């Protein structure tokens, strides 16, 4: 049975449904963002752990120059070691038509039957390579998707030890070792530039010149070794003791320090990405729930003020403070409940969508949405917490309200001349503005909270559109300013300098800039990274390193220039020395001083002067690529000519990849952006609509009196709207600031910049977009109350209450 107070509750809520709905929606946004982000997070972790388990991800990893296969037994004999997998891992460059620079292919040798005991493959499509075939490879999924490789159809060119091979893609797979193909937030990244080719290790050994030997080790620890996956025990054997023993065994074979899972590149990146994601799962929902708490506070405060008489009556007839407070808490609870229910449903839906997006960054065999009950309960509890927080002040107010005093109508509000008026400001504006200014200054807390709410909404929308700015900046500075060529050509073999002249004489070619690109591994202490090392001619003007915002970094005669992201990853600064190992030919190793780091927007890159590279390689001349500036009218013809040349491995056209890039980035961003814009607008509507309702209700007497005195409805509306407009205007600028700041926080995190450095300011267009949406949402909400202003009861005002 519903008690009389219960009925009152439901009817009160029904009569304020506009406010109920707008607040519930803000709550729903908070819950939805929490559920979506958090569930996505939990789902990712679960998927990762399952992947690691099912594909037997190793615990300890080591690289070495080369050791005979017999050494494996020594590794197996180390106490605490469970399984040892030895293999060959080699990097080669892959010149591809759809990239201006060659991609790096990492060839991983597997047992001929394709089923290693550690770091196994999760085959997604196609099949494993046939035992004994050196020309078949299973390719990493991210790379295959980025280039549209079809198993059984596609072939890849890869230069191994200076010899170009054509490898047939027979399957597509995932491995726990290479989960992290592309960091979140980046759109155009390593997926294209880095692929893994799993091949029959024995079959390709000759091509890699490592017959009967291995250069890479993966091992797992026994379950009882502390630090092993899932281990708890504490014996004499520790993870550290195993690492030391492995180093001991491999030292004669050019072994590099072995490292455990926490330093394994993919796992390390994944961990820091997840940590950042975890942070986001609290910041964003907290902001929404904060706004919701504020709205509830304002609205409930007003309801209680309007119901002073009713509260007094309840007290007079013997209801206890606790019972009355509970009644109003229930009001809040119900609003929150509507919001939470909607938020949970929405959150599950969004979570599924987000997971779809994350699936492009983190590749797991099975990424399914987890909705743990505890998490959902936490979300609901948090929203109720926000509700109670918002209601707290009011509940205290109810308890303080003396039953006798409340029987009287409320005394006129106390106004004072504000500092604005004292400095003569208001005189400039006229009496209507005094009313506005006094109203705002009389309740500084509510005014500032409203301003904050608007700022939040602007910030969310700035955040939403910011990714577009980042893409534009990326394209303008990261790509277009650095890549001013029209066509990039890669040769099958190193050719001599005459090739440059031949290119220059082709029809339509306006300028030629030769390049020498080699696969290299850069090392600093235990950290290393394989990538394409580019040697550029002095004063290169087509391919340049361009630093954000728009400064060309010159490549010095001596030393190496690397991108800041790469420098961070390797832990070096300008002035430090790097070890650079060329991964082909005589595999020369040199130490080069880092001359400069460039804050390039895009990716990991390493550049030396052509002279430096030739000195390293001990070559007099020679190049294997060139950037061409082309007369646009001749572009098609030249493209066709180039492809006919036997020495040309790939022809990459800028117009083609720019378009591809645009398409990919807008595809991925539009949904997220839309959702965030809706969230932001919801906050704006929630704040402005409730402020408007309260302004009208609190001042209906004053406003009606003005109408009686002869003010038009328009003039009266102007006073209320003046108040709202002032709050909105005050909130815009801080909102833009807050939005930029939030984006910096989100994107300045640890590893997100692996291949992509975000610019740090939003564009004027984004600011205009955010301001436009918020102003529109505010105007819309304000119009919803216009009706109430027009229906002010003039007669009721004139009836005195005592």
């Amino acid at each position, binding site marked *: 049975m519903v008690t*009389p107070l219960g009925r*009152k509750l439901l009817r*009160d809520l029904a009569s304020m449904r506009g406010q109920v709905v707008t607040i519930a929606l803000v709550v729903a946004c908070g819950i939805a963002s929490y559920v979506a982000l958090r569930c996505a997070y939990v789902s990712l972790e679960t998927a990762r752990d399952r992947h690691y388990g099912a594909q037997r991800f190793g615990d300890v990893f080591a690289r070495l120059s080369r050791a005979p296969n017999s050494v494996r037994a020594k590794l197996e004999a180390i106490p605490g070691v469970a399984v040892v997998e030895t293999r060959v891992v080699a990097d080669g460059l892959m010149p591809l038509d759809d990239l201006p620079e060659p991609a790096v292919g990492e060839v991983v040798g597997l047992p001929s039957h394709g089923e290693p005991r550690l770091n196994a493959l999760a085959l997604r499509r196609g099949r494993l390579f046939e035992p004994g075939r050196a020309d078949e490879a299973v390719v990493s999924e991210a790379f295959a998707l980025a280039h549209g490789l079809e198993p059984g159809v596609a072939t890849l060119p890869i230069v191994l030890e200076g010899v170009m091979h054509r490898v047939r893609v027979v399957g597509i797979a995932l491995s726990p070792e290479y989960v992290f193909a592309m960091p979140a937030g980046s759109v155009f990244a390593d997926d294209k530039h880095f692929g893994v080719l799993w091949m029959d290790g024995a079959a390709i050994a000759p091509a890699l010149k490592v017959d009967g030997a291995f250069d890479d080790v993966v091992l797992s620890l026994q379950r009882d070794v502390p630090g092993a996956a899932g281990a708890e025990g504490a014996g004499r054997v520790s993870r550290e003791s195993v690492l030391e023993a492995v180093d001991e065994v491999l030292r004669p074979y050019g072994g590099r320090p072995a490292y455990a899972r926490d330093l394994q590149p993919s796992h390390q990146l994944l961990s820091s990405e997840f940590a950042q994601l975890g942070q986001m799962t609290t910041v964003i929902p907290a902001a929404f729930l904060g706004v919701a708490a504020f709205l509830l506070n304002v609205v409930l405060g007003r309801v209680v003020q309007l119901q002073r008489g009713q509260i007094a009556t309840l*007290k007079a*007839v*013997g209801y*206890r403070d606790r019972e009355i407070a509970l009644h109003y808490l229930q009001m809040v609870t119900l609003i929150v409940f509507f919001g939470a229910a909607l938020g949970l449903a929405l959150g599950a839906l969004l979570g599924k969508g987000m997971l779809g997006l994350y699936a492009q960054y983190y590749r797991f065999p099975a990424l399914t949405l987890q909705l743990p009950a505890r998490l959902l309960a936490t979300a609901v509890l948090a929203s109720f917490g926000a509700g109670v927080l918002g209601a707290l002040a009011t509940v205290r107010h109810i308890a303080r309200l003396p*039953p006798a005093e409340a*029987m009287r109508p409320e005394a006129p509000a106390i106004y004072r001349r504000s500092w604005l008026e004292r400095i003569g400001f208001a005189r400039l504006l006229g009496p209507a503005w005094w009313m506005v200014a006094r109203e705002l200054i009389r309740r500084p807390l509510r005014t500032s909270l409203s301003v904050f709410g608007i700022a939040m909404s602007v910030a969310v929308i700035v955040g939403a559109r910011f990714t577009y700015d980042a893409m534009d900046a990326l394209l303008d500075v990261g790509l277009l300013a650095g890549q001013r060529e029209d066509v990039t050509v890669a040769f099958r073999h190193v050719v001599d300098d005459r090739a440059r002249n031949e290119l220059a004489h082709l029809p339509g070619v306006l300028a030629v800039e030769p390049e020498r690109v080699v696969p290299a591994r850069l090392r600093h202490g235990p950290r290393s990274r394989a990538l394409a090392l580019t040697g550029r001619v002095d004063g290169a003007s087509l391919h340049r390193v361009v630093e954000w915002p728009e400064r060309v970094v010159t490549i010095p005669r001596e030393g190496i220039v690397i991108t800041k992201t790469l420098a961070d990853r390797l832990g070096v600064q300008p002035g430090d020395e790097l070890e650079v190992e060329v991964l082909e030919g005589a595999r020369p190793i040199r130490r080069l001083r880092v001359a400069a780091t460039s804050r390039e927007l895009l990716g990991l890159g390493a550049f030396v002067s052509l002279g430096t590279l030739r000195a390293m390689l001990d070559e007099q001349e020679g190049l294997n690529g060139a950037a061409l500036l082309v007369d646009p009218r001749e572009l098609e013809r030249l493209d066709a000519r180039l492809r006919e040349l036997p020495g040309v491995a790939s022809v990459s056209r800028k117009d083609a990849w720019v378009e591809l890039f645009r398409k990919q980035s807008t595809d991925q961003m539009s949904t997220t952006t839309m959702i965030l814009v809706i969230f932001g607008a919801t906050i704006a509507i929630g704040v402005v609509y409730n402020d408007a309702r309260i302004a009208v209700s609190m001042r209906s007497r004053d406003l009606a009196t003005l109408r009686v005195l002869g003010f038009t409805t328009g003039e009266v509306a102007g006073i209320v709207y003046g108040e709202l407009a002032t709050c909105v205007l005050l909130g815009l600028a801080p909102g833009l600031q807050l939005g930029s700041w939030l984006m910096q926080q989100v994107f300045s995190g640890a590893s997100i910049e692996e291949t992509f450095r975000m610019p740090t300011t939003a564009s004027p267009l984004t600011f205009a977009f955010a301001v436009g949406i918020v102003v529109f949402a505010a105007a819309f909400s304000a119009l919803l109350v216009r009706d109430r202003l027009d229906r002010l009861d003039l007669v009721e005002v004139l009836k005195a209450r005592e």
Partner: protein
Amino acid sequence: MAEESAAAVLVARGLTKIYRMGEVDVVALRGIDLELYEGELVVLLGASGSGKSTLLNILGGLDGPTAGEVRWREHDLSIADDAALTSYRREHVGFVFQFYNLIPSLTARENVALVTEIADAPMEPSEALDLVGLGARMDHFPSQLSGGEQQRVAIARAVAKRPDLLLCDEPTGALDFATGRLVLDVIAQVNRELGTTTVLITHNAPIARMADRVVTMSDGLIKSDERNAAKVAPEALSW
């Protein structure tokens, strides 16, 4: 019908009430001595601002005195805390206010149920509404009732819990003459049929003729306290 010899249920001694309004002190009661006897109907008469409501609020446990003592049977209300005063109101007192103070979002029956819900041995809400002659309009909202009807609902709400004390503050203040008389009739009837000790505030001297006893206040003091020998039924009143 109370005798002087009947037990005094409520006793006030030396009540003063000072409202502190910033710099100024407003003295509303300047030392009131008063007894209320079981079952009597007392009319409290006085000009506006003389302190009637203040006194009634203190007698009803809505407010505490600045000095002095109020006893409800053996309970000292002047030293009672908030919770004790609430219990006192909940168990013993029924209020009727000038502006009815109905909950606008509840129907007549629900307004009454609001009180029967928390009372010990209440009437059925419908019984209370029948008592005030509104049995037929139980499911109307306050906005659908006239002022007199609303006030009768308020009376039904006050008496439904069978209070020991019925306190009415200018119950006819907002009503026209004929309607007001109807309301007074209901109050007299409740006093008569249920034997509820009743205090009725008014600034209309003629209404005093329906009382067992008339207490006159002026400037925070009791000016006179007389038995009304010629008690008449409310129908006979005019003002």
